[in-house]
């Protein structure tokens, strides 16, 4: 139990390196090794859930070893109710990604699977790190495998897309590094906890807030720094899109919750209007943009941006609730909603990209106009597609509903206009998603290619089936997830509403 988090980080990385070493001489062995490693990681993450004490907001499964004693930075890992669901999401989503690439990837398959395993380890590292330098280490290192995944196995404009992805995120992150160093100089060590406890003047907080915002807003991504995402999604291979949407975007949300809100609470309170405005623009404007797309992947990419708008909105609602009602009641709903939205969007967007991957593998086009009446030739697939699409629109009973509902509920407390603007997602989300379903799935068979389609293979059925169960489970019975993070969310609310200004 002691080293569980370390195992969850280094086991996939070691498995990835081994897979890479096996190489393409024996792709069969490489595939199986990759699958077994990801399954092992998934199984090993279960005790993380069962042994987690949800009554405590403190970090659990803590490991701490000196790493760079000269800088007072340590190899410190631990989880709380906010990072645990995201780690579970990571280990859960990697398995379908490996299976989805099973026979589809023909070009250098060993390297493909190795990249995803290494990614998995690094992503768990990001969520588990209790030391900011360690966090940054994983955060940046993760760019390498993703850069290669999009660049090697991507579509026609893959080079453009992957360079844009890398440079955008790199640019965002470096200023966070300067902010971290600045705070280290004041606090004397690099741990997250001491940064959270460090008193800072409002001017300092503002600068640090913007440095963090640049890093996290690019990753989320928030309007207007979202432009890398549609490109990256369209060009990435299916697995890359899934990981990108399901987990990498969550790092931005996680960063806002873990760093911005708790380390610069006063600046967050002062500048919450900025985040709220950007989030609402993401919800409304990007929603409209999504309607206009002709490429399925691009449509889902824009839908991701709109949905992540709910995460950022929920994260920063507490301040305006306080301003409007004089109390923080309802703010917990906003944070809960943001967290559930992250998990739910991880599963749904992953499933949507996998569905598009299923179609693309057969037709080699993502152009919506090339499809029509798929349900006639692929009834089982059609059912899955419709289910995930409805979840994407936030249908009650699916996971997509819970998060959006909680955030909209909370935004009513803050302001009627916020709620009205956020509520448009119910219309816009339905518009772009259902119109997509109508054009692709329903209607008469559009052409000979569609007529020749074959329904799901058992492998694809398994992947989509598992995700469908997850979507319904979270939608119908979200209580375990909410309980899991309850203490941590309350603790977060306390931290973000306390002041850190130095006593004069």
């Amino acid at each position, binding site marked *: 139990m002691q080293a569980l988090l370390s195992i969850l980080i280094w086991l996939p990385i070691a498995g990835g390196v081994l897979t890479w070493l096996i190489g393409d001489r024996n792709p069969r062995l490489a595939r199986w090794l990759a699958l077994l490693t990801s399954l092992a990681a998934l199984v090993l993450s279960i005790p993380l859930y069962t042994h987690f004490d949800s009554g405590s907001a403190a970090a659990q499964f803590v490991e701490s070893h000196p790493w760079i004693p000269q800088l007072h930075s340590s190899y410190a890992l631990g989880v709380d109710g906010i990072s645990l669901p995201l780690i579970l999401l990571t280990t859960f989503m990697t398995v379908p990604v490996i299976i989805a690439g099973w026979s589809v990837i023909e070009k250098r398959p060993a390297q493909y699977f190795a990249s995803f395993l290494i990614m998995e380890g690094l992503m768990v590292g990001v969520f588990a790190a209790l030391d900011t330098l360690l966090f940054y280490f994983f955060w940046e290192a993760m760019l390498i495998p993703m850069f290669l995944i999009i660049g090697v196995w991507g579509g026609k404009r893959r080079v453009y897309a992957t360079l844009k992805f890398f440079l955008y995120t790199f640019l965002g992150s*470096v200023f966070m590094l300067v902010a971290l160093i600045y705070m280290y100089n004041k606090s004397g060590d690099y741990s997250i906890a001491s940064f959270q406890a460090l008193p800072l003047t409002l001017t300092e907080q503002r600068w640090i807030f913007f440095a963090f915002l640049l890093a996290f807003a690019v990753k989320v991504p928030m309007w207007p720094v979202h432009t890398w995402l549609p490109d990256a999604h369209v060009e990435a291979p299916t697995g890359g899109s899934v990981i990108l949407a399901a987990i990498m975007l969550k790092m931005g949300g996680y960063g806002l919750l873990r760093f911005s809100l708790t380390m610069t609470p006063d600046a967050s309170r002062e500048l919450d209007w900025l985040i709220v405005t950007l989030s609402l623009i993401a919800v409304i404007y990007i929603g409209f943009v999504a309607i206009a797309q002709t490429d399925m992947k691009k449509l889902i990419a824009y839908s991701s941006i709109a949905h992540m708008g709910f995460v950022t909105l929920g994260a920063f609602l507490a301040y305006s609730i306080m301003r409007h009602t004089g109390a923080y009641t309802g703010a917990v709903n906003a944070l809960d909603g943001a967290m559930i939205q992250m998990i739910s969007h991880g599963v749904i967007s992953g499933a949507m990209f996998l569905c598009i991957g299923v179609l693309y593998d057969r037709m080699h086009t993502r152009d919506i106009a090339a499809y029509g009446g798929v349900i006639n030739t692929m009834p089982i697939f059609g059912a899955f597609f419709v289910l995930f699409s409805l979840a994407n629109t936030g249908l009650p009973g699916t996971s997509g509903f819970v998060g959006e509902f909680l955030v909209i509920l909370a935004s009513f407390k803050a302001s009627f206009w916020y709620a009205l603007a956020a509520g448009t997602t119910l219309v816009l989300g339905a518009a772009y998603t259902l119109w997509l379903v109508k054009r692709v799935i329903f209607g008469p068979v559009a052409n000979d290619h569609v007529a020749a389609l074959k329904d799901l293979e058992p492998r694809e059925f398994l992947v989509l089936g598992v995700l469908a169960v997850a979507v319904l489970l979270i939608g119908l019975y979200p209580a375990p997830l909410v309980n899991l993070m309850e203490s941590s969310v309350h603790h977060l609310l306390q931290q973000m509403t306390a002041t850190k200004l130095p006593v004069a």
Partner: protein
Amino acid sequence: MVESTLSLASITPALPEIYLGAVICLVLLVDVFGAAKFPSLGTTLSVLLLGLGSVLIAFHSLVPARTVLFDGLYVADPVAGFLKLAAFLAVALALYYSQAYRRRRGLRGGEYDVLALTALLGICVLISANNLLTVYLGVELLSLSLYALVAFERDSGDAAEAAIKYFVLGAIASGALLYGMSMLYGLTGTLDLGKLATAAHDQASAGLLIGMAFVIVAVAFKFGAVPFHMWVPDVYQGAPTSVTLFIASAPKLASFAFTYRLLSQGLAGMPQAWAQMLGVVAVLSLALGNVVAIAQTNLRRMLAYSTIANVGFILLGFVTASPDGYQAALNYTVVYVLTTLGSFGAILLVSTKGSELDQLEDYKGFVTRDPLMAVLLAALMFSTAGVPPFVGFWAKLWIIQSLVNAHLLWLAGFAVLVSVIGAYYYLRVIWFIFFEPPVERARGEAGGAERAVLGLNVLALFALGVVPNVLLALCQRLLPG
């Protein structure tokens, strides 16, 4: 504690230089009598003896205390011992990587090895200089050896052009250095770096400032920093790749020592003045190096501009004029040398008889031709770009941290911004290697042993990246505050 009598005990701290002198004589003799039968004997011998020498230094000359010898001309202190060790290893590695290449290009003459060794001797003298004259002696010994090495390939027009440019500009820089030194001497009346430090203050006369400015010109030239960088791209591209590898690696350690001895020690009394000038040089180098590198299509030329940018980072460490800045600069220099040895070593190992394989185009789809070397090159590029888990990230981090410590937040912001720009052209190399369809090129002839050594070289970058405290602790011990 200047010792005036010459006894055996009093010269033992200078053992590295004495050993090196003996090796030079030996290699010369071996070359005269054995070259006909065993043309690569000189190189093999040099590599082995340098390896032995580094063991010797490690066990003998990593002296804990500062010792001044030869009437104050020579100093042996911990940082000198470490830099010499690093220089010995770097030269040994450079010669080792070059073997196959030199065999092919007919650069086998023993003079090559001897010139490399005399350059190393120059580096060692510079590292241990405690007097303006010793500094000059080291600089000239190093530079003259390098000029000759660049021109070594007599029949190559490019090499001759590069050598002439290097020589003429180098001569001007040497002139500037001498001129600056003469002014410093004229105004303070001492050549000793220790005495100079007490004699020259921030409030000192305009004459001192002018003298210092000329010294900085020489520093910038030796480092290849803007605006004295003109020679770098031409020499890096024109010289045989094995010589480029040599110039790009060990002499940077000498440049660090040169700057440290002259400015941080010799002109310790007037840090404000030189830190500002170095700041301008550093900012210009970072900007120009990173931006112009983007436009290059030749890998060696691109790495030359990358060198200019990296030098900017090293100089930023000096700009803080603080011990932690010097530590960061030392750390960066060592990391840079290790990475450069790897990058140019890789180019050497994959080059073939007909082609230097130094055009970016040549690396299209390289991963399918040679997966191992492709991954090593990618790791080297990521490290230079400053992406974890490679040590290049930490090298940059410590420079930035020392800047933040010194309240130079704007410089820190600028440094991270240009490193994002810089990331682009390193990524472009990886893009060509991994993302492009392969082109037909002959496979390099490098043997398994050389590839294994390069693998270890890259592995060291990774290991130091995961356990970064080792190098930092060392730098802190060597240059205590």
